[in-house]
């Protein structure tokens, strides 16, 4: 465990403590019902952030096995949220069962054992071919293509893409690989938080009311700039120079933004506002990891291409 990890820990605790104190103060000052609802939601978010920071930090401190297990659990919960909203037919039952109890565990087992070659192709090749093959045995052709697409999207987003965050621990960059996971998660999540804060404070211009009514252009730019600065400041966790860290952070925040955006579009297509309810103030697990889902694979492959032997 490096000294930099300690500093990130101190920083995160300081930010959360500040947010808790500011939230208390705002709660006393809020007068309108909408204002009060916003502050209550803000404070619920902060309380959930404490829990999330402790769980994630704890898993990282415990080591690679605990971190991999944590992400396997998050994938399971995200997949569960995906299918609780996405419709399926009885003919998909076996494919769904296999997604949860065979594909997901095998994929994370390959990650845990460091078998990169099979990890990279297991879901996109084997699950992609085997699941529809099994579905045809049910004999139901209604909406077959759309149903198979949903099975693949569910697995690819919630399991395959998300798993690229703990997969960073497979990369031999000469620095502590667990710190790459920390770097990705801190930059992506702080970008979300900073977008929220800037959006609430100076947000005027809606980015896309149809897809995600709360996102504003001002929030976006303020959030990205803040997150890139943090990414540069944290370059000591990584093998990157400050300039490289700026580039990597920019990739993380832009990809992360589109992660939230795409999953928001899916959510609205399915007629829901949140993916679930397990994280008070935020919604479901999928509402919280949507940015990681898009950022993790890009960050993984850029790092693998340029920073490993």
């Amino acid at each position, binding site marked *: 465990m490096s000294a930099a990890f300690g500093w990130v820990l101190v920083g995160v605790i300081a930010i959360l403590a500040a947010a808790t104190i500011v939230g208390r103060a705002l709660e006393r000052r809020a007068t309108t019902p909408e204002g009060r609802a916003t502050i209550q939601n803000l404070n619920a978010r902060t309380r959930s952030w404490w829990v999330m920071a402790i769980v994630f930090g704890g898993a990282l401190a415990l080591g690679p096995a605990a971190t991999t297990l944590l992400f396997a659990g998050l994938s399971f919960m995200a997949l569960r949220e995906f299918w609780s909203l996405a419709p399926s037919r009885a003919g998909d039952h076996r494919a*769904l069962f296999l997604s949860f109890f065979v594909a997901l565990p095998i994929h994370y087992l390959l990650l845990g054992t460091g078998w990169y070659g099979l990890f990279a192709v297991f879901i996109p090749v084997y699950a992609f071919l085997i699941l529809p093959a099994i579905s045809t045995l049910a004999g139901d052709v209604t909406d077959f293509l759309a149903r198979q697409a949903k099975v693949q999207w569910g697995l690819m987003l919630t399991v395959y893409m998300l798993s690229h965050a703990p997969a960073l621990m497979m990369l031999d960059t000469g620095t502590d690989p667990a710190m790459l996971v920390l770097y990705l998660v801190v930059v992506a999540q702080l970008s979300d938080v900073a977008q929220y804060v800037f959006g609430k404070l100076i947000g005027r211009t809606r980015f896309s009311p149809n897809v995600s009514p709360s996102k504003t252009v001002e929030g976006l730019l303020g959030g990205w700039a803040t997150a890139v600065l943090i990414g540069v400041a944290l370059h000591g966790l990584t093998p990157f120079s400050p300039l490289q860290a700026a580039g990597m952070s920019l990739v993380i925040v832009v990809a992360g933004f589109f992660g939230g955006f795409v999953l928001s579009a899916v959510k609205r297509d399915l*007629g829901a506002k949140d993916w679930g309810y397990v994280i008070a103030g935020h919604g479901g697990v999928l509402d919280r990891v949507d940015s990681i889902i898009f950022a993790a694979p890009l960050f993984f492959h850029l790092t693998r291409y340029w920073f490993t032997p």
Partner: protein
Amino acid sequence: MSATALARQILIVLVRILVGARGEWVGSTPESRSRIYFANHTSHFDTLAVISALPPELRRRTRPVAARDYWGGSALKRFVAEKCLRAVLIDRDGRGEGDPLAPVDEALARRESVLIFPEGTRGAGEEVAAFKSGLHRLAERHPEAELIPVHLDNLARVMPKGSFLIVPLTCTARFGPPLTAVPGEPKAEFLARARAAVESLAPRRKGAPT
């Protein structure tokens, strides 16, 4: 805590982990008055899910109505039904003596609530089947009991008929607004209206609400 109460608590925690079983109140609030909850029937978990979704103080006074031919089938099922769920077992095929709904009447006369599945048998989950007449008889005999429609979402997909594989989706029990009494309404119309009330609580899967 007695052994039965402990078993009941364990059962409810298991149901919560397995299928979520979150209660959502739209148009009615959890009140401890005498009520007839009526829900769509899609899986073996239905009774457990609705009971788990109720707040504890309501749970204590709500008796699920269950078919004796299924729940009385083995010692374990009988223990779960009668002790853990405090179910009222009835003979749905009319083989028993007298009025099969008599035990339900007794519960409502004691100002307890009951939970019934008027479709009678498990459906495929996609549509709510026509309601049997028991609900109408209970509503007529107990005008003081509020009629609350309940829609169970996703449970049919957790374990569809004929499969033993469980897919761990989360289920929401939506409690809707009480069905208003219409004096002199024919039985068929009442049953169709009750069925429509359950169906209207199903979540919209297409389109974009705000």
